[in-house]
């Protein structure tokens, strides 16, 4: 948001803040409500919950943190952040296809270790 505001301009913003506040509360109720609605697909349940959280976070960032009308230098900082955050999550998802074969539960026993009792799993 620009750093010079008229009284009326701010008053208009206050109405937006209240609308966003109500939307955030509704979003919270919907998120919790989803928990009680049994969906067969776990992936769909996760996708809906993350989608609602993303919408809520966007409302907070966009209006409470004024990102809908910020300066270019802040968008530049956030674009770099978004790039690295997306990269972090991409590496995480990539790794999900990699590590299960390396766990104790799925590893083949080493030659000569067949007689050894499997170690109990401690979560």
């Amino acid at each position: 948001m620009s750093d010079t505001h008229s009284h009326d301009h701010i008053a208009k913003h206050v109405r937006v803040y209240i609308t966003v506040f109500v939307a955030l509360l509704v979003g919270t109720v919907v998120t919790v409500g989803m928990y009680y609605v049994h969906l067969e697909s776990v992936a769909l349940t996760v996708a809906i919950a993350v989608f609602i959280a993303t919408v809520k976070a966007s409302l907070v960032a966009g209006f409470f943190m004024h990102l809908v009308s910020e300066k270019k230098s802040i968008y530049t900082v956030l674009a770099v952040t978004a790039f690295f955050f997306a990269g972090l999550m991409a590496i995480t998802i990539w790794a999900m296809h990699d590590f299960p074969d390396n766990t104790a539960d799925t590893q083949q026993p080493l030659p000569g270790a067949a007689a050894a009792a499997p170690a109990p799993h401690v979560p």
Partner: protein
Amino acid sequence: MDIPYTTQLREDTNLYNAKVGIWLFLASEVMLFGALFSSYILLRVGAPPGTFPHGLLNIPIGTFNTAVLITSSITVVMAWASLKMGNFGKFKLFQAITLLCALGFLTIKTFEYRDKFIHYEVWKNDGTRMTGHIEGNPWFWDTQTLKTKNLPAITFSPDAHHYAEPRTHGAGAKGEHGGHGAAVQIPAADIKRLSAFVPAHSTYFGIYFTLTALHALHVLGGAIVIGYLWGPGAKMWKTDPERFTNRIEVSGLFWHFVDLVWIFLFPVLYLL
């Protein structure tokens, strides 16, 4: 020496310096929490079936705490808007509500933690597992405690349901308060492992406490700054109102970020 660009906009960024500073800091915070979220994803996806606890947190309490943080977010932005409109009295009122919300959030979180510290899981030698409470609600007991205290047995009130057993979705909405079976005596010799719901219990509680404690530290830090600006720091309003308003905006940006992190933490840890 005067600090430059506390109110005046820099030519190159078109912002006052503190605003650039807080956004750079928040960018680093995104990566900090992002790394922990990615850890959560890997731990959860990599957990063998039945070993990643689910439904052990109190959803109504978590929902209430979410509403508390959302409320504090609007009072922070309303406090800033009040200063922009020259109403110092309203600023004081809104930030007082913010501080009460912060205190309320941390108090509720403390009680939630306490519930975990007195809640236990027992792994028996026969392969059965149960969750519940030990008579007297002791804190932080583990397998070693039984030996140290030379206890022959524990009196255990098992929960009606173990998290590894399937059940109707949503039935565990009250978490550990879902009811107890009759108390049973479990000989110490039959216990293979005993653990409270602490980080050592499982990777779930390890990441749960890491994420929520780090978030709670942010709430505490934000509340200290907001409290300072509400109390002794508020005298700047008389000498340099524009700079004071900018300070409130910057502290508010941090506070909204703390709210934003919780918006993701709540469904991830409590619901999914």
